[in-house]
């Protein structure tokens, strides 16, 4: 095993980890604030990916604009979706069934509109390799990783420093106490939910660049996002980045020393270990 193999794998794993976090951030936000596991998260992300696909490949829209457009469109979908979720949000089982159902409906809608064809958002200059010092990484992964840092940094700042952000945090920790100081908790819920959906949509085109788009791919995204959210600790946004990196790095290194066959086991083992040893998540707090 050479230095370049190890170094390059580490770099690649780090970037992949940052991407994982980006694809999970919407689910984590909604889970943290509303305590709803949005099982349609992956399908919303795919919806964004499809919007991005047709904007970029069909109409030649530049990537940054496509990202905003995807985020906005899926945000609007999320706004409508919220009015359905709101009615049953107090019953955990019902929200699981409902969000799962929305996911199934979206999947079938994709099949109907876009067929079962596999797609990728293929932007030639993003498929190149770039040298970062001694290692070579994919430019698409790099761009997506940087966007991930930006989004997670921005969201962390927003939650920590702005008045609305503080209201979201207060409401997620203790709804009643937040309402008592005049926070319209229902408005905050709606805002957080729509923001979570919009973030999924925003990440969609980047997913289409670093991975591939097909109508049934949403479930895997949701599961991955859920695993990261649990690893990170309920609603911890910076924790999400670290959890993603642990996962991405672990997956890459395990290939170097063993085989890709162990990647899935690694993710699962990490998940189970965290559930046993730190059920509050790696970065969650103990009560």
């Amino acid at each position, binding site marked *: 095993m050479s230095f370049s193999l190890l170094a390059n794998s580490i770099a690649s794993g780090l970037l992949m980890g940052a991407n994982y976090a980006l694809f999970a951030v919407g689910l984590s936000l909604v889970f943290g604030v509303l305590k709803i596991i949005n099982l349609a998260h992956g399908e919303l992300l795919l919806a964004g990916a499809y919007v991005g696909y047709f904007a970029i490949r069909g109409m030649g829209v530049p990537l940054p604009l496509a990202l905003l457009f995807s985020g906005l469109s899926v945000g609007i979908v999320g706004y409508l979706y919220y009015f359905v979720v709101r009615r049953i949000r107090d019953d955990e089982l019902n929200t699981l069934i409902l969000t799962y159902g929305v996911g199934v409906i979206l999947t079938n809608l994709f099949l109907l509109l876009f067929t079962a064809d596999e797609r990728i958002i293929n932007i030639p200059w993003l498929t190149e390799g770039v040298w970062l010092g001694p290692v070579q990484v994919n430019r698409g992964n790099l761009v997506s990783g940087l966007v991930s840092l930006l989004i997670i940094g921005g969201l962390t700042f927003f939650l920590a420093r702005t*008045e609305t952000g503080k209201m979201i945090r207060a409401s997620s920790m203790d709804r009643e106490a937040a*309402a*008592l100081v005049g926070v319209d908790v229902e408005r905050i819920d709606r805002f957080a939910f729509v923001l979570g959906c919009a973030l999924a949509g925003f990440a969609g085109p980047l997913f289409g660049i670093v991975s591939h788009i097909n109508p049934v791919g949403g479930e895997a995204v949701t599961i991955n996002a859920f695993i990261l959210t649990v690893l990170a600790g309920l609603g911890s946004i910076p924790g999400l980045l670290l959890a993603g990196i642990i996962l991405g790095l672990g997956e890459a290194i395990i290939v170097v020393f063993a085989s890709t066959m162990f990647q899935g086991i690694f993710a699962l083992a990490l998940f189970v270990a965290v559930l046993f040893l730190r059920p509050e998540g790696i970065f969650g707090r103990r009560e």
Partner: protein
Amino acid sequence: MPEAILSLSGVVAGYGEVVVLRGVSLSAEEGKITVVLGSNGSGKTTLMRTVMGVLPPIEGEITFRGESVRGLKTHQIARKGIALVPEGRRLWGDMTVRENLEMGYLLRREGDSLEERLEEVLEIFPHLRRLLRKTARTLSGGEQQMVAIGRALMGDPDMVLLDEPSLGLAPMVVAEVFRVIERMREAGKTVLLVEQNAKKAIEISDYVWVLENGEIRFSGPPEEAEENEKVRRAYLGL
């Protein structure tokens, strides 16, 4: 009763099938300290939560400054100028003391800036000044109670509801809490205080109500309460 700022008439409320308040009527006069006494399970906390709209009343009417607040959401009622210091403090444990206090400032309607309000609260609780950067969860019970009261005062409310503020606190701290409540009255605020510590509460009160099994069993000025046989036996241990 003249100048009742808050009044309840025939309020029935509870959780699902369980009715806790069975037709409660009471009122609080502006600028006065009104005390509600009651043992565990008598419905004191339910009373507070119903006033704040956390629990919607099943029956009855609640008015604040003559306007019905029945059916309003909690944040809407709070914005009318009522702050509740809830049982168990309910601070945001992950936030700093300063952030907790700042959240209370959301209730301001006009007037003072955040810094001015903060100064005023810190003047009432000077002890909090050096705790501002600490995370709320790391504070002692007494300190947390001060933050909870401070948070309520940040919004400069007309009326403050306090749900057992002395519960679980050391005697020294209890004394400070009661001193602060008296200061609120001096500042012209209306106080509705629910307490088990009946002796202290009656001492500072202007009017006393006794709640038992979800019903009002006594009402009158403090002197009358101290004379009342039932109140003496049940709450003053005499």
